[in-house]
């Protein structure tokens, strides 16, 4: 007797993997796109493109000066004035005038973009842009804390499925060199190799995501130390609590003998020091007031790199009284576990990442999603036909419907009239309408052709998006690249890559449809083709009946010779373990089919070698 470990693992992987495969694809695709949410919002707001600045020293100084003048004109000397400087991700500067009451709640800060050249605010269209896709990734948009908990719970379950997959996996390296060209074998090998190669990324993204949602998902863990004050755990998680024993500054730049406008002089010096101190330059400048007088100016690093500090950028503060510039304290050095915690959350948020690292993160998340999709298709190919219907439809809805709806949403952010009331709501409605229609189509349409049709739609949507990105904006992508604005070029390139991928998948699916399901096309041309090429079933039955009446049993057997050639071409090959099983059963089936009842008493030894010879002897 033995313990059926492999069977149990296979059952767990197959069953839980179905639901979690859909969920994982959803979360990973949206997560990958969310890495570019600021870029997508900028792309959608065409009114701001002309005011975009290259992320260099001169542009940042210009934006800081223009922002200060604009704040003086429009703001009152209280609270904080915050100016965001042009960066690689967001090249348009913006200004927020924060009232004293909102200083500790950044959700109430309203940033307005401005043109550093004219010194005026920009009137950009209202759009949810990339933020909508980000909210979908985080809390399934609109579900709030419940959505966050659900996402975290399913992510945790994904870890169990990953682990069972690791135990089931065999010979990864040899599989890598024997990837099948098509059919179920391809999906099987692709899923094994893809999931094996992307396993570290998948585990890393899942665990780091769980770190961000932990306090809402497993609140019982907070009971021993934070039962009364859960909020302070969140504050500490973000690494923004400073401890009293670390209030000494690390570096001091003494004030020079500045002449003229004191505020301007302090700002210029602060920016100069910041540019020298940080590779990525300053990303934010804040002017803090106390008793209606400017007390200090603070500059924050654009992109922090210390993982153990949650990649929070360093801060430099210039005192208005003394003029000295000091670094803000970072607080006490965290321990090993806290460092791990901060590093995990920083990794998931990707704030540290330069453009290439961000691209790598995005591609790795998409590869994880791809391997999950391959697993879903593999399960479909292996499963029983009766159980495939709804699961197959949901796979189509997730794997093809979701990217199509995302493309539709992004198109809506650009094409809807900028003056429309409740524009962001309409953009969301476009997304849900397309995604809902995709589900209805996948459920009602013949599964053999539904996927192909949705792929055609996805290709068209992606192509429209590419056209819009390449020709529907000023400056165009190439012009933007050469004028120091890589965001627009990168966005156009991303859409183009998505279009190529969608067209490739459509072409592959068309090959399958032509081979397997062309006659099942129930549209008019398909129906006509089917009626021309196949006999009606009633006629077929009549012909069979006639044949039976006219022939004896032996003749009937001869009329329908058995063997492998008699099999219908299925269009895809079975995975190795299934193929072996079938091969082992094949000769027995052949024997049974070949022997008519009249010959059952005859010697079977010769029959098994040659069917026709033995039948001839019998007659």
């Amino acid at each position, binding site marked *: 007797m033995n313990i059926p470990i492999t069977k149990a693992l296979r059952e767990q992987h197959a069953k*839980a993997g179905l639901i979690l495969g859909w969920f994982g694809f959803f979360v990973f695709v949206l997560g990958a796109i969310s890495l570019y949410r600021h870029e997508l919002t900028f792309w959608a707001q065409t009114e701001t493109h002309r005011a975009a600045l290259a992320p260099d020293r001169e542009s940042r100084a210009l934006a800081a000066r223009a922002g200060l003048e604009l704040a003086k004109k429009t703001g009152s000397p209280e609270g904080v004035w915050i100016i965001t400087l042009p960066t690689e991700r967001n090249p348009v500067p913006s200004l927020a005038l924060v009232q004293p009451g909102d200083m500790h709640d950044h959700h109430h800060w309203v940033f307005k973009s401005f043109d550093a050249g004219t010194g005026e605010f920009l009137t950009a269209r209202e759009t949810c842009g990339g933020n909508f896709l980000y909210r979908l990734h985080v809390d399934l948009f609109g579900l709030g804390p419940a959505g966050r908990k659900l996402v975290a*719970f399913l992510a945790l379950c994904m870890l*169990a499925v990953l*682990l069972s997959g690791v135990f089931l996996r065999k010979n990864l390296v040899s599989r890598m060199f024997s990837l099948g060209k098509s059919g179920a074998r391809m999906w099987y090998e692709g899923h094994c190799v893809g999931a094996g190669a992307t396993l570290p990324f998948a585990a890393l993204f899942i665990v780091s995501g769980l770190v961000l949602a932990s306090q809402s998902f497993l609140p019982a863990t907070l009971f021993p130390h934070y039962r009364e004050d859960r909020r302070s755990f969140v504050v500490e998680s973000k690494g923004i609590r400073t401890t009293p024993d670390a209030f000494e500054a690390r570096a001091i730049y003494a004030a020079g003998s500045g002449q003229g406008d004191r505020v301007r002089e302090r700002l210029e010096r602060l920016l100069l020091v910041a540019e020298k101190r940080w590779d990525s330059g300053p990303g934010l400048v804040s002017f803090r007031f106390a008793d209606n007088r400017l007390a200090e100016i603070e500059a924050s690093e654009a992109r922090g790199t210390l993982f153990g500090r949650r990649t929070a950028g360093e801060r430099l503060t210039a005192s208005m009284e003394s003029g000295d510039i000091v670094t803000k304290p970072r607080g006490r050095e965290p321990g090993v576990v806290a460092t791990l915690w901060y590093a995990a959350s920083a990794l998931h948020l990707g704030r540290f990442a330069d453009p290439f690292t961000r691209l790598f993160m995005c591609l790795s998340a998409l590869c994880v999603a791809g391997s999950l999709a391959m697993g879903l298709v593999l399960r479909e190919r292996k499963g029983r036909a009766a159980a495939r219907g709804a699961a197959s439809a949901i796979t189509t809805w997730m794997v093809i419907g979701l990217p199509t709806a995302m493309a539709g949403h992004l198109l809506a952010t650009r094409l809807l009239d900028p003056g429309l009331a409740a524009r962001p709501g309409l953009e969301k409605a476009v997304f849900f309408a397309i995604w809902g229609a995709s589900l209805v189509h996948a459920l009602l349409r013949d599964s053999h052709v539904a996927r192909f049709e949705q792929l055609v739609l996805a290709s068209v949507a992606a192509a429209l998006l590419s056209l819009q990105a390449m020709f529907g904006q000023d400056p165009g992508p190439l012009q933007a690249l050469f004028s120091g604005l890589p965001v627009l070029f990168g966005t156009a390139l991303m859409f183009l890559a998505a279009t190529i991928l969608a067209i490739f998948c459509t072409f592959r699916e068309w090959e399958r449809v032509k081979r397997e399901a062309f006659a099942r096309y129930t549209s008019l041309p398909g129906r006509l083709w089917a009626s021309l090429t196949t006999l009606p079933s009633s006629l077929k039955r009549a012909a069979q009946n006639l044949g039976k009446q006219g022939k004896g049993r032996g003749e009937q057997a001869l009329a329908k010779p058995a063997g492998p050639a008699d099999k219908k071409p299925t269009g895809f090959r079975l995975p190795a373990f299934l193929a072996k099983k079938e091969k082992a059963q094949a000769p027995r089936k052949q024997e049974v089919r070949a022997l008519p009842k009249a010959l059952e008493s005859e010697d079977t030894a010769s029959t098994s070698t040659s069917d026709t010879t033995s039948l001839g002897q019998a007659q």
Partner: protein
Amino acid sequence: MKYPRHTLLGSTDLAAWLRVVLSTALGLVLVWVLAPGIATVWAGTAFEATTAAFLLAFVLFAPLALLAHLLVYLVAGGLVADKPKARKNSANKGRDAA
């Protein structure tokens, strides 16, 4: 010898789904109970103890859920009989020669 069929929850597709849901729930309950315990006994600051408990809970959930599934699978179906060994060729050879 015939392989035993699942008796507790049957051998249907629904039973398999039930087993998976049950084992996942078991894993979650175990983690839910374990994490506050770890936070209580972990030496260090409150923040470090809590974060350590969270991290260990995430790491432990997957093996616990798999073990729970194995347990449920065993309870439902019992041990599996060993496969009958294939006859050795040498024995056949002797018979054929005779």
